[in-house]
Structure formats: C-alpha cells, structure tokens
C-alpha cells in the first residue's frame, strides 16, 4: 500500500521518477494524498471539499497510460488542490461563502482544464477568505484555516487553504488567486513558493470574480521549479478571456537556470520603512545572499507606494460591489424567501454574505455612486496609473525588484479580526504588484526566532516571469545547498 509515500517531500520530478520506477502507482499516490489530506484537515481545515472520485478517475488514466507504455504528461499523477473560488465542473465551489454553499458549477475554469489535461490529479477544493476577501483566512464562512507551521496562527489569506495544503504536504501543487496579495502573503506565512503572474498571463475564465482588473490565478508549490512548471501550463492566451494576453510564454525552465551574476536588483526604500526588525534582518540576509550570487543591488524608490492601500480599497471594492450583484437568490445561490422582491434580495444577501464582504460591497457601492465617482473611483484609477508608472520607471534601471512580502509574520488567530485597518496593512507590500499588473512572487527566505516562515518578494517587468523565476531559482538553490 501507499502509506510510506513521503508526501511532504514530493515534487513533480520525484513523482515522475516514482511512477516510472513503479515505486507507487498514480492511484496509490492519489489515495495516500486524499487520506493524508482528510486526516490533516481536522487540524488545519485547509480543505472545504474533497474530490475522491475525480482524483481516482484522473489517477486511473495516468496508470493506464503507464500500463500502455505511453509518454507521461508533465503533471502525471501530481496531487493538486484548487482554491474554492476557481470553478470545477460537478465539484462544489463555495467561495467559502454561505451564499454558494451548495453551488455545483457546470463547467471547469480554463486553468483547471489545462492542468488536468497535463495529468494533474485534483484532490479537493481549498478553504479561503469569503470571495477571496481577507488576509488571514478568518473570513471563511466555514471556519478559519490554521497555519500548519503553528496551528494557533493564521496561514495568511485569502488563499490560506491552498498555501496550507502545500505546506503540510497534502498537495504537491495548488492554485490560488491574488487580488491584493492573496497568493504571496499566505505563501510567505506558510513557507512555500507562491506566484502572482503578470495580469493577463493566465486566463481568469472560471475564476469567480472579486475585482476583475486585479484578479490573478497563480500557483503554490514547494519549489520554484514546480511553480514555474505549473505557470508554464496555465499561461497563455485563452479565447474565453478577452483580457488574457497574446504574449508568448517563455521556456521558464531554460531561463531560470541561467546564473544571476550581473543582474540588477532594486530595493524600494518605501518597503523597508516600518518593517519589523526580525523580518527586516531575515530579508537583509537574503539580500546579502543575492549579492554573493553576483547581483548588483541598489536602492530605488517607488514613490507612490504610500497611496496603494487607499487606491486598492477603492478600485477593488468598486469592482466587487458589481461582481457580487449576481448573488441575488434568483438562480443558483441559496435563497431566503421574503414578501417582496427587494425583501428577497435583502434577506438572501443579508444571510448569505459575511461581514467583510458586506463591508466591501457597501464601500464599493459608495465610491461608484453619482457624485462620488470622480472623487473616488476616477481618482483611484489615476493613482493606479502613477503606481504602475513607478514600476515602469524603476524597471528602466533594474531587472528585478526585491522586497519583503509582509511587514510581519503569521499572526495569531483572532488577533486582528476586530481591526479591519490593521488587517488591511498585512497587504501593504503586495498591493502594488496587483495594481501595476507586474509579475511577482514569494520565495521562502528564512524564519523568525519562533520558527515562523518569512518570504522574499520578487517583482519583474510585465511578462518577464523568466527573470523573476531565474532570481528565485538561483536564490533557492544557493540557500538549500
């Protein structure tokens, strides 16, 4: 049987080797991953739904290919977890919200289609903040996720379940979504690799919209190489998403193996002011390491960073207020009956949405209202352009930008729930990536004294994921060996 498969240390490559050498079958691996995930779930609550049937079906196909001596696709048999804001055909997709508690989509997201076509085995849907709104995963209607590295702490959010699943070893890969930092911050908190690709790089078709102009799908993995493999598969133009880019997808693996000697790295001074001393010194050591690898490091400025938070909470909430209008109880969402139409709307949405979602809908409705649009939404769009220009200017001088992911490490569950503003500050270093649309990622770079993971954030030029992966890969290899 499969109980001796060392799940937490598996990678795409080691699974491939294991399958080839017949150390385990894809079915055994899927069973082991499902059993482990179910067992761990009582501790972390990382999964909302397990997809036993679908996983075994995918695994059987891989085993069949092996039996017939066919070439294995790149993700053959690899256990994958999918954030529950990404739709899966026939598999419940709740967005961690009461309002979609029983919703079963009739179609698959493009990213899911592409990964399954390459042999990935979806073992389940992961917990997250409701509609991806939050930084701690405490906004889930189905209970918070606990950080596998410290069970009394949050895994970060909103893709907390996807980060936790990869960190605890129940999944080798997972998909998350990032609108303001929802992949990088939990990756940093849980000690895994998390990638937010360039806006338009990965199709959003099937990603339940929070803020359409900021939403990204991206991978979590335990190694840079695995994250790059996933991105390579899900990236590229999709006819079903008009905002997906035609830009060609590079060979990330070839690119990342080039040395980084001479690579020009910028350190934005705004990201190091007010940084916790512990995080600061871990990041400082990582930067020293980059210098040792031959990177040319210099201080730069992204002067409009201080406006990112207010800009973000206008743009994101405005779009959210519109995107979440469809949950009205008329078609697929849970309905609470009422005496009039407006009463049905009020009750359905009143019962169905959690506090943070309501807060953002109200904020977004307000900033789009007649008489306020110019002062808020239009102004925020102008600020957004300035933030994007900061990056363009910086990338005229440097090849990559390095910064912390979060000002602090994983905090205790309950610590910030009553203080939305303190919670929003968790994302202060990650928002600019989404607002500007540049690719960015978190790569593990050390731990606090308490053993809490800390991530290093890397930004690169639009569609230049290759340089981002190259820096991350070289760094990762240099600290592992």
């Amino acid at each position, binding site marked *: 049987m499969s109980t001796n498969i060392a799940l937490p240390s598996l990678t795409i490559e080691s699974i491939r080797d294991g399958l080839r050498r017949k150390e385990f079958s894809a079915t055994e691996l899927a069973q082991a991953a499902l059993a482990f995930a179910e067992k761990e779930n009582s501790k972390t609550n990382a999964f909302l739904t397990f997809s036993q049937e679908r996983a075994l079906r995918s695994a059987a196909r891989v085993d069949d290919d092996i039996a017939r001596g066919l070439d294995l696709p790149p993700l053959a048999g690899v256990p994958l977890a999918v954030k529950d804001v990404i739709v899966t055909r026939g598999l419940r997709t709740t967005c961690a919200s009461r309002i979609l508690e029983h919703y079963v989509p*009739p179609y698959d*997201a493009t990213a899911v289609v592409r990964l399954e076509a390459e042999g990935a085995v979806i073992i389940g849907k992961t917990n997250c903040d409701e509609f991806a709104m939050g930084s701690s995963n405490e906004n889930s209607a189905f209970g918070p996720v606990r950080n596998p590295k410290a069970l009394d702490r949050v895994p970060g959010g909103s893709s907390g379940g996807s980060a936790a699943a990869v960190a605890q070893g129940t999944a080798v890969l997972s998909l998350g979504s990032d609108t303001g930092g929802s992949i990088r911050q939990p990756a940093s908190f849980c000690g895994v690799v998390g990638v937010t690709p360039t806006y338009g790089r990965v199709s959003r078709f*099937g990603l339940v919209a929070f803020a359409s102009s900021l939403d990204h799908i991206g991978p979590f993995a335990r190694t840079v190489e695995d994250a790059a493999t996933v991105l390579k598969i899900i990236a590229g133009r999709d006819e079903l*998403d*008009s*905002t997906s880019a035609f830009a060609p997808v590079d060979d990330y693996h070839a690119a990342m193996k080039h040395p980084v000697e001479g690579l020009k790295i910028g350190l934005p001074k705004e990201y190091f002011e007010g940084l916790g001393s512990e995080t600061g010194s871990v990041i400082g050591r990582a930067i020293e390491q980059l210098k040792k690898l031959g990177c040319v490091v210099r201080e730069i400025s992204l002067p409009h960073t201080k406006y990112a938070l207010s800009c973000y909470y206008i743009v994101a909430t405005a779009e959210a207020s519109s995107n*979440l209008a*469809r949950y009205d109880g008329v078609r697929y969402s849970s309905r609470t009956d009422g005496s009039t139409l407006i009463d049905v709307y009020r009750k359905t949405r009143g019962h169905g949405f959690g506090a943070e979602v309501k807060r953002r809908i109200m904020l977004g409705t307000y900033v*789009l209202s007649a008489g306020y649009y110019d002062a808020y939404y239009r102004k925020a769009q102008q600020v957004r352009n300035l933030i994007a220009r900061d990056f363009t200017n910086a990338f005229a001088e440097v090849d990559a930008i390095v910064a912390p992911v979060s000002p602090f490490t994983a905090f205790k569950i309950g610590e910030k729930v009553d203080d939305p503003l303190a919670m929003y500050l968790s994302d202060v270093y990650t928002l600019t990536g989404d607002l500007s649309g540049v690719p960015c990622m978190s790569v593990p770079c050390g731990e606090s004294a308490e053993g809490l993971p800390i991530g290093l954030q890397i930004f690169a030029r639009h569609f230049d994921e290759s340089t981002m992966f190259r820096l991350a890969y070289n760094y990762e290899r240099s600290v592992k060996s």
Partner: protein
Amino acid sequence: MSATALAENVLAKYEPVIGLEVHVQLATKTKIFCSCAVEFGAPPNTLVCPVCLGLPGALPVLSRQAVELAISAALALRCHINPFSRFARKNYFYPDLPKGYQISQYDQPLAEHGAVNILTPSGHKRIGVTRVHMEDDAGKSIHDGFKDSDRYTYVDLNRSGTPLIEIVSEPDMRSPDEAYSYLTEIKQMMQYLGVSDCDMEKGQLRCDANVSVRLRGAPKFGTKAEVKNLNSFRFLKMALEYEIERQVELIESGGKVVQETRLYNVETGKTVGMRSKEQAHDYRYFPEPDLVPLRVSEHWLHEIQSRLPELPAGRRERFVRQYGLREYDAEVLTLTRATGDYFETAAKVSGDGKTTANWVIGDLMGLLKAAGIDIAQSPIPAAHLGELVALIGKGELSGKLAKEILPRMFETGDSPSAIMDREGLRQISDTASLEKIIADVLAANPKQVEQLRAAKQPCSAS
C-alpha cells in the same frame, strides 16, 4: 382626455419637443458575448450558457459580427465611428438581469454625431443622432400564464445577451408625426442594411421617448418626461399625443411638469408615472474590466463601409433620377429593400421604369395585398412583370388584355407569353396575317357576307 390627434389650439400655443431612444436588436447568429444562438420562441432557458446565465467565473467575449452590424448601422446613420470605444457596466438589480449589471457603453460610445433625414409636409428635415452604442439585452420576466403566477414570476434567459444597439436622437422632433417618420426611417434603414429584422412584435425594435412642451418661441426646453413602452408605431404616436396634451393641460392649469419616467399603458391609452427623478436608479456606471477597449481600425471601417448596400434615401433619389419616377412612387417603391429590388429587376426587363412602377404599385400590390403575400414571395417573378410591360410597349398586348392576364400570371406563376400562347390571346399587329384571317372569316361565312353586301350597312355586333 383621450389620446386623439392633437387639438389645433394646443399646437398653436405650445411646441412639443421630442427625442427618441431606439433599441434595435442586431441580426447576429449568436449572442453578443457568448456563442449561444439568438432565436425567438425557443423553449424557455434552452439557449443559455455560463456566460449569458451570469454564472460565477464566466467572462464575456465580444462578437465580431455584432460590432460589424453596429458599425454598419452607425455609418448609415452618418455617425462618426470612434476608433476607441469602451464598454461599461450599468448596475441594477432585477431578476431577469443575471449578472446584476448590463454591459453597455457609457462615456465612450461606438459612434456619435449622426443624422437622419425625414420627410415632413414642409419638406426634408434633419434629425440629429447623438450617439449609437452597443449593449446586451436582459432576459424576460414572465408574470402570468402559470398556475402559481399569483405568487411567482418566472424568468426566461434565452434573450439574455442578445445584441442590441441603442440609437439616441437629439431632441429635434416637433410633433408625433415627425417621431413616427423618424422611427419609420430608422426601421427601414436597419432592414435595408440587414442589421435587424426590426420585428416589433418580437421586440427587435423598441422605443422610448423624451417629451417636453414649451410655449412657441420660448428659448429653453421645458421639463421632460421619459415615456417608456412604445412598442408599436401606433402606440408611439398615441402615447406622444397623450403625453403632450397632458403636459399642456398641466401647465395651463397652473401645474408644473416634473422630471420622471412614465409608462404607456396600452389598455387605457394613458401614460402613468413610474418613478421620479429622486427615485431614479443610480446605475453606478464604470468601465467594464472584463472586456478590453474596442478599437476600430481605418482598414476595418473601410471594409465594412464597402459592403454597405444602397440606403432607402439614396435609392429614392436615384429612382427619381434614373427612371423619371414621381417622388411619391419612388418612396413607395423603396419602402422595403425587396420592393425596390423587385421593381428594378422588372424595369430592367421592360426597359420602361415609369410604366413598370405603375404596374408594381397598382395592380401587383393590389393582388399581393388581397392575397396577404409579401412582395419577396410574389408568385409573379419580377422578370414576368417586366415582360408584360414590354409586350404592351411593343403593341403585342393591349393594356386591357394585360389587366386580364395579370391575375392569371398570379395564379399560375406562368409568363405572360406562355399564357397568351396557350389561350390564343396574342394581339396581332402584322397586316398580312390580319388580312388572311379576314379573308378566311369572309370565306367561311358567305351568307352573312351576302346579306351585308345587299344591305350595304354595317353589321351589328350582336
């Protein structure tokens, strides 16, 4: 007060000011943002997919055909096509609006600054077209016809995502008749272009009106009311007449017109207040982030322009010029594209436009009307009618006989010459043949000839 033609004294003192917002359903094969078919009368909720159902995670993709039809319409309306336009979300809650917003265009529409010419009793008049923009249609709420309709409304989303253009006019119309002519012109134009079938019963052409009145000579417009639900030409005229009289009576009795949306009630012939300015929706428009801006290149524009057919106004002028028709006849013959095509095919065969026009407008249309048949399905092919006119021209057929043959052509679908041959109805103008026939007749009737000669009197026909 009833919706009758406006009283003279009302119009002597007050001037109505009317602008129309016309929605035209584009004749595309698919919906505007997904590949579902557009079809009328399919079983409820069968022409739907994740996109037009507004399912979580679905995204719109703009139909190229819809854009091309919209551009064709805008070109025909003599608009400037913006090289860069943008979609926007119009947010409001309604059960048949599955996304919770309509995807429309707002501050950057597809086309602007156009015009339509209409014929009025005092000649041609230019009605400005403010803008033409694209949008998706909502589904349909069905409030009755089910056994639990007293408690439930049913929703059919087959129509959700049907492509529409909205044509917004300037407030340039000064009477219900002008509004009627304007809408007629739009309908004809759209049908000519193949942009829309404009079947009002199927909701393919819908109209709202902005109406105000002012004292003649007053420099400023009065406060306007928006009248909705004007879904036939007759209702448009009746509703406008009613609304103008209502506003005039209100002002005359010392009241004030309030800015509001009013609904025309077909049963009572009256308009009823629906919501005031204060209750008006705040649609919270903002740019649609799921669609990239629409760019129309010069090249694409020229390509579409080169495919545009001749429009009614141009064709009308050409008919007068080329065939020497009267303006009225030219207008009748260009009412639909099919009529114009029929006439031209027939005229080409006959070589006589004017006479052909008389036959099409008179006898043929009479026959078609009596049988309830559209000219496109006429049992008499245009070439046959042309042949008939040609035969008259050559003197082979008298006008009187032609009028007898035409119904036979209508019944049988045969050509006039075929019918004449079969029934021996050919008019003979060849003297030699005629003399031979006369000789034969005389030879066959010697007795009568004898009598006639003896009497030296003409024979009576009896």
